[in-house]
């Protein structure tokens, strides 16, 4: 017993010692460092405005966190502005990653640094990623210096309802500043991967798709019931009739799980409905319709046979990961070509890295989709204005337009190409130092 306790202590001590390592190195905070009120003018670059074409030799002015001017060479630059010469460079809006686990993980193999999934039950809508979000994560500086300025942080997909997503900005003085929209949406995963164990002898409900669908349906029915009880209580409580008010009794016991589902029952917020193969997509869509959910589709990687149906729903799709392997019988490019196929049907698509450490590679997935037929402008939209619209944030994000946030990237080439190097990143009009844990190691050893 003593031995076991000792081992445990050693393990804890080791974990504690190890957990020191992944912290951000001194000097790299995730806040944008320079003065907040500086006016910055980017001059001479090729502007990919997204919403109103390409402007060669253009000017972008940012003031008080927002874009105040976008135009050609003749655009007026306010006196006192810091002028950054970006001649020969490409200027585009900050990229939006529509699914990451940034801030929920440091070292993947170390459970102590991972808060991606509460795996104790399949129905966990009351988990909020903002409660775990690690603002000082070393991964965010690594990601943003490749031009990703905003992202959805989602719990991992191991539960049917794993919790609620937050939308983040990849810079800020604290988690509060970075978590720009909390509980923006709720993933609903129906890919067959959410069952607890696949060992028949130790089967535990839900062991099958039947089980998972039924469990999910019951969860929404429970939420409807909870909502009715709340409404009935409120009605009695606010009745003009005193007797009726007395009959109201105690309010229904607060249930965090059911409460978390309420905004989704009437489509106030979207569910991000994840399915890969056609049968799962159809089952999940039926379920969503049954409860009048507002839907953003996710993955649809193996559902090329339902392209017409997907297009007919009019729903937007977060497509990918396009690096998913095709089915055994499929051609090698069956998944690589999904973004092009969806866009051709008029579906609004967005890309996601579905990752944390490699979120920085988001634009390359879009570039690969271009290789397989997606028009380049569509690919860039799927990283900017499309996700901004899908997440309801296009007033602030997604294009180089006056009035939008100064989330702007300058690079030495095509934003989607693997060879391109990002030279400047601005978030809310402030220049982000191109520094990360990794650049520090580079500078230490590259002599």
């Amino acid at each position, binding site marked *: 017993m003593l031995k076991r306790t000792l081992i445990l202590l050693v393990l804890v001590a080791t974990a504690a010692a*190890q957990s020191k*390592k*992944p912290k951000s190195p001194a000097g790299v905070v995730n806040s944008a460092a320079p003065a907040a009120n500086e006016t910055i003018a980017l001059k001479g670059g090729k502007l990919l405005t997204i919403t109103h074409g390409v402007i060669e030799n253009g000017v972008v002015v940012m003031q008080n966190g927002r874009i105040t001017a976008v135009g050609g060479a003749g655009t007026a630059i306010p006196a006192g502005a810091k002028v950054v010469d970006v001649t020969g460079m490409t200027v585009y809006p900050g990229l939006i990653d529509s699914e990451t686990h940034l801030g929920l993980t*440091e*070292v*993947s*193999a*170390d459970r102590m640094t991972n808060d991606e999934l509460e795996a104790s039950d399949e129905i966990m809508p009351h988990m909020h990623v903002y409660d775990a979000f690690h603002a000082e994560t*070393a*991964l965010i500086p690594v990601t943003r210096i490749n031009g990703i300025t905003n992202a959805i942080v989602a719990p991992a997909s191991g539960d049917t309802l794993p919790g609620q997503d937050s939308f983040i900005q990849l810079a800020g003085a604290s988690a509060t500043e970075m978590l720009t929209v909390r509980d923006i949406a709720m993933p609903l995963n129906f890919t067959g991967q959410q069952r607890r164990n696949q060992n028949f002898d130790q089967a535990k409900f839900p062991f099958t798709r039947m089980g998972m669908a039924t469990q999910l349906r019951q969860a929404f029915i429970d939420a409807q019931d909870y909502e009715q009880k709340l409404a009935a209580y409120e009605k009695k409580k606010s009745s003009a009739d005193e007797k009726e008010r007395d009959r109201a009794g105690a309010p229904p016991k607060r249930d965090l799980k059911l409460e978390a589902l309420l905004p989704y029952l009437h489509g106030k917020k979207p569910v991000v409905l994840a399915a890969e193969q056609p049968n799962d997509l159809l089952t999940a869509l039926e379920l969503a319709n049954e409860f009048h959910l507002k839907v953003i589709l996710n993955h649809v990687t193996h559902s090329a046979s339902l392209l017409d149906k997907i297009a007919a729903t009019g729903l937007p799709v977060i497509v990918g990961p396009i*690096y998913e*392997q*095709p089915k*055994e*019988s499929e*051609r*090698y*490019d069956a998944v690589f070509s999904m973004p092009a196929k969806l866009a051709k049907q008029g579906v609004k698509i967005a890309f996601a890295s579905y990752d*944390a*450490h*490699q979120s*920085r*590679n988001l*634009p*390359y997935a*879009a*570039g*690969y989709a*271009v*290789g*397989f037929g997606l028009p380049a402008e569509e690919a860039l939209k799927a990283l900017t204005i499309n996700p901004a619209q899908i997440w309801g944030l296009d007033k602030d994000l997604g294009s180089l337009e006056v009035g939008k946030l100064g989330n702007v990237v300058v690079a030495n080439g*095509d934003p*989607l*190409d*693997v*060879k*391109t*190097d990002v030279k400047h990143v601005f978030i809310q009009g402030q220049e982000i130092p191109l520094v990360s844990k*990794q*650049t520090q*190691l*580079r500078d230490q*050893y*590259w002599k």
Partner: protein
Amino acid sequence: MARRSHLYGVALLLVSCLLSTLAFAQQQPSGQQSSPAIHNDVVIKGGTVLTVTHGKIENGSIYIHNGKIAEVGKKVNAPAGATVIDATGKFVMPGIIDSHSHIALSNDVNEPTSPITPHMMMHDAFDYSDKAIYRALAGGVTTSLLLHGSANMIGGQAVVIKHKYGLGRDELIFPGAPQSIKFASGENPKRVYGQKNQLPSTRMGNFEVMRAAFIEAREYMRTWDDYDAKVKKGDKDATPPKKDLKLEALADVLRGKLLVQIHCYRADEFLTEMALAKEFGYKIRAFHHALEAYKVADKIAANGIAVATWPDWWGFKYEAWDGIPWNAVISAHKGVRVALKSDSEDVTRRLNQEAGKGIHYGLTEDEALKAITLNPAWIIGVEDRVGSIDVGKDADISIWNSYPLSSTALVDKVLIDGDVYFDRSLPGLGLTQYKEGQ
């Protein structure tokens, strides 16, 4: 009558033999009979040829004779009957070589039952029908080193394949490729055995089991040397020691017969591995993954050891925490031969993009191209055969619709030994030797 029925029986037997042969052939992705045994003369004309060893040839041509590159240049003297592949507006480069892969091993990548398993032969698990071979081929890969996993300090012996998807098993094996053996270190062995409360559960244990294994192998070699000496002296009573597959394999390491490929992440472990190699007198061919190579690159270079790494993987475990995307360029500039590899069924399909990322992080175009062709060929020990477009080399060539080291480039055709195995313009899977359902 009796005789006749006997004959009838023989005939039946023959028919059933024939049927079973046919059935066997049908189980394979394609019949053996479709093997292109006779190579046609081929000319690839009009493309931008990235030779790897002698620069870029605009509007260049390659003449392929008998499966080998016979001529390369602005103009070649090909016979009139040669098959012409028009590569106008396209890019022509050697087939990509993946120096770290675990595809097509029937999910039998690790024998995690002992930390020392040098006698495991990956050839025994090689599944030539695995579609992953096809999907890598469609990404321009023509040669892969299929390695044992990293559960063991000393794993098994690798198999080198050419991606001739659709042919029979033996035709996918790279003929004459040297034998590689996989070593590992660090977190994986200590985790796998530590979880079972066995040795090794620490890096101390890791290196101890290796040392002990080589000491045992030396002892084994000595017993054979003694026996050989007795035989030489004419001792007719000398009895040979029992052959031991495991010790025999370790002895092959010490005899320098195997290329040693070591899974290793951390700077201190490169140094320990190099010291161990010196102590026991074997050479290390390459460090694989090698995320901290940049910290001790000069020492790795001084030992003539190559590095097979990813351009930007990091953070998935502690020994990957200091991985940086400038690892390749720093190591290369300090004189290390650097390859970019996949270690992934996914990434092996787009190693051209990985090389493109190499450029992003500072490699020159030539260095990046070498990192997926000639350098991995060296790691596998087949650099005299493949990895560049040079006269006398195997005609393993990929043709791309645009500059290959980019996000958007697609493979149009892949030739191996002068024959086209993948052609994007073909319907179905785009394969020439594979017949669906056969």
